[in-house]
């Protein structure tokens, strides 16, 4: 029993709006957690630097801001890349 070609194939179908929405939902579902965890990672890195250099609380504060900034930039980059991809797909 082999299905005739094309019957079970979804290769050439156009993407539905639902599928597109589901994808963007999945894509940005982890952004919040990434933001929070990045800040915590850099907070601990800052504390570690403080312990080493005795510069408390400067390292910790700088760490939190650098972590938040970096996470924000990562999110921005991802959004821009997706935007460009969508634009390119629309132009095609």
């Amino acid at each position, binding site marked *: 029993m082999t299905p005739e070609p094309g019957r*079970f194939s979804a290769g050439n179908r156009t993407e539905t709006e639902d599928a597109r929405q589901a*994808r963007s939902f999945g894509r940005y579902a982890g952004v919040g957690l990434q933001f929070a965890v990045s800040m915590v990672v850099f907070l601990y890195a800052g504390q570690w630097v403080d312990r080493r250099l005795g510069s408390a609380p400067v390292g910790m504060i700088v760490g939190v801001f650098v972590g938040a900034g970096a996470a924000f930039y990562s999110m921005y980059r991802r959004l821009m890349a997706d935007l460009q991809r969508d634009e390119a797909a629309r132009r095609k």
Partner: protein
Amino acid sequence: MRAIRSLFLAATLLALPAAAQEHAAPAEGAAAENVDIITPHITDGFHMELPYWAPPFYKEICLGRHVGEHGCEALWPDVHVGPLTLNFSPTKHVVFLFIGATLLSLIMIMTARAHARHTHAIGRPKGFAAGIEAMVLYIRNEVILPNVGHHGNGFVPYLLTCFFFILTANLLGLIPYGSTTTGNISVTATLAIITFVVIEVAGMRALGSGYLSTIFYWNKDLALPIRILMFIVMSPVELVGKITKPIALAIRLFANMTAGHIVLLAFIGLIFTFKSFVSAAPFFMAVAISMLELFVAFLQAFIFTLLSAVFIGQIRESHH
């Protein structure tokens, strides 16, 4: 025959209050003592409940070694691997994982055979096989292939296995005497780790050496000192972004299954707390929540599969 059946039913119904009183008698002495019915139901343990014909209609069996009168301990001793202490003894959830896997394998193999037989005989599947075909085709054509992208067929078997395994585990928790294995963080974490490996290997195969750019941020448009600074700052963030995905997958499934069961058990507990006509309210709420849980069992299996497919597609197309 019918008379015997009615007699048996009547006898059982008459025996119920007696059994309940009998059961309540020792509890009366310790009236002030609260009994936690929720935690033992949702957590893992060495005890398992089997259906039993006589009141209280269940028989507790010990999967490990008997200790004292009612105690039950792990069957095998701990294993030390470096700083870790592990125990591989069978528990309630392990048993239900095996029951789920065996049941799923049997159902799916028999369905596939029936599907082939019907298609050969009348040109199309019918009955249960047609239903499963509809689910499989929906997940494949609407969820996996559009999200994974080109050559997505290779990921269909793994993602479908995930979907049906999680669905079976979720549904096993809804039947009487059952236990939700997906309400155990170790089980969902294992599923998420396997998915994580699949995602990363898919990325490595699709991107080749370009895979490193999904972890290390090396922007050639920047001046070298800035580039190094950005590399040091951004690389941990990208790595965190990679690791948080499976963590979110694991926690989402675990929390949804556990929370639903806690709500359900709390309502069932309220029925026995009120002990009057007011009990009707939590009774209907428990029925409603059961229906909701049935929906959630399908929904969470679907979401796990959808997100896995999205993550695989995302890493395969990331060329920036």
